[in-house]
């Protein structure tokens, strides 16, 4: 392996964390950001599921990329993703039943997550399995980072808990503090994502659009 390939693998893995984040730079996968971030726990499980599905579907598509007829490639990609999503869904039902109930339909809807189709089309169809795997892991983590940040603020301000544990002390409530019910509702997820984008763009001035 040459040096050039090594560095490129590194960028493939780490670039989606911040500079090319799928959520806050490419603005993909917003729908699931709204849906699963009311609490931290389902958000983390959702993030893990997306990392797994994204990494392995990238590898599989990359392995068969030269044999897929171009005209039906989207269908092939969907079949691969759907198969993986079903496996993840069954695993969750078997080992984390409570969380799978909370996530309900959204694990199944990973199939329609724009990040997946985007990475398969843009990366796995044109790259070897190992970089594709790293790309899947990187983008999955980039997605999960935002998911967790949003869920952190929504659960903290909306329910006063984190991972289900009470963090806002009882004395606050006695003094008149009330949980913000709006944080539980999906619109606030958009506002929180917007705030993250705001902060991110202020730090990375090169990403600012005119």
């Amino acid at each position, binding site marked *: 392996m040459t040096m050039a390939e090594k560095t490129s693998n590194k960028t493939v893995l780490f670039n989606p964390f911040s500079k090319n984040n799928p959520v806050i730079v490419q603005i993909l996968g917003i729908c699931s950001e709204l849906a699963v971030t009311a609490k931290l726990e389902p958000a983390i499980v959702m993030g893990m599921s997306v990392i797994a599905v994204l990494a392995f579907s990238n590898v599989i598509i990359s392995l068969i990329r030269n044999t897929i007829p171009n005209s039906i490639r989207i269908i092939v990609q969907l079949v691969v993703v759907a198969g993986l999503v079903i496996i993840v869904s069954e695993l969750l039902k078997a080992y984390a039943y409570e969380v799978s109930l909370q996530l309900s339909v959204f694990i199944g809807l990973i199939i329609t997550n724009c990040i997946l189709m985007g990475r398969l089309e843009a990366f796995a169809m044109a790259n070897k399995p190992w970089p594709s795997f790293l790309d899947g892991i990187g983008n999955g983590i980039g997605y999960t980072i935002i998911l967790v940040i949003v869920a952190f603020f929504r659960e903290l301000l909306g329910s006063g808990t984190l991972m289900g544990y009470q963090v806002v002390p009882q004395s606050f409530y006695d003094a*008149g*503090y*009330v949980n*913000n*019910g*709006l*944080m539980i*509702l999906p619109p606030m997820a958009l*506002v929180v994502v917007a705030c993250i984008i705001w902060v991110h763009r202020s730090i990375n001035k090169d990403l600012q659009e005119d």
Partner: protein
Amino acid sequence: MKALRKLLDRAKPNFRPGGKFSALESVFDGFETFLFTPNTTSARTGAVHIHDSIDSKRTMIIVVLALMPCFLFGIYNTGYQHWLACGEATRPFWPMVLYGLLAILPRVALTYIVGLGIEFIVAQIRREEIQEGFLVTGILIPMICPIETPLWMLCVATAFSVIFVKEVFGGTGYNIFNVALVARAVLFFSYPAQMSGDKAFVATGTALGYGPVAPDGFTCATPLGQIATGDGTQLALTGVDGQALSWWDAFVGLIPGSFGETSVICIIIGAIILIGCGIASWKIILSGVAGGLVMGFIAHACQTPLYPASMLTAFDQLLYGGFAFAIVFMATDPVTAARTETGKWIYGFLVGVIAVLIRTYNNGYPEGAMLAVLLMNAFAPLIDWCVVNANIRRRRARFTAK
């Protein structure tokens, strides 16, 4: 006055670029133009032909003036409802007014401090003049909220609304939604238990330590709240003291409700001031009332116990709740309303229709006027676009027909 002018002139160089406090230039400018009319006008040689001293500051002050009858009545009504709630036999005028004043002043002061604070900071960061839009918003927010809204909630909602509805869009005049209404909507959806129901609308404790205290567990809902939670078999609206309420009480305004919205008489006085000074569009107000009447008539014509508010007559729909206030002071906000003349008719009418529609057919939201205005704020640009394009098409047809 002269001494003040001198003081300002002496301080001025410090705030000019290069001065000691040049970072605070916009703050100084804000105070100077607030105290004195600017001594500069547009050049006479330019393309400007109309010289008028009307500016957004003057407009805002007139709106605040138009709000004063409602504000003063709100002070009286707060005290009046409180005295009723305490079951006092006598209702002395001045103590009630003093109580209402003490109850509302901290709210007004806090909203102004939070809102203007954010405006000042943003103006410094952007190096712009301070916008005066918050003059009206700051007094509107406490007026459209229940008197028992906790102070910190008012601050949170005001800050959220000013930052996310106004400043991120570019400041005064660029907002899509009415800032004061969004503050109320944020409060309503964030803290529904504190903002609606039967505990929020009548002050029960003392105001800064003044006045009697209502008995423990005292509750009284607004008329619309009573209707929404009623069983729908009959309309029995009662005031704080258990006496039945008539439409006349709602017209005068001696009913429980948000601070400034109860008195239709005062709202009409405000409307006359606004229309007389050419600030608010009479088209929006008229068509809004028409829309409320039409929808109220339809709802009343097919009344059903399932939706108790449909038992109100169309006329009652205009009197109760925040409908009148929203139509006169919220829907007419020139920034967020439709701007084309035909568009104003459509916009106002739809605000009226949707306000009554929501309050009648969604028992969870007894106050539909707020949501109706916000919804139509979102559609105002579309209405304008349609009106402008229809006009272009009509003129093009006339042109090609020749």
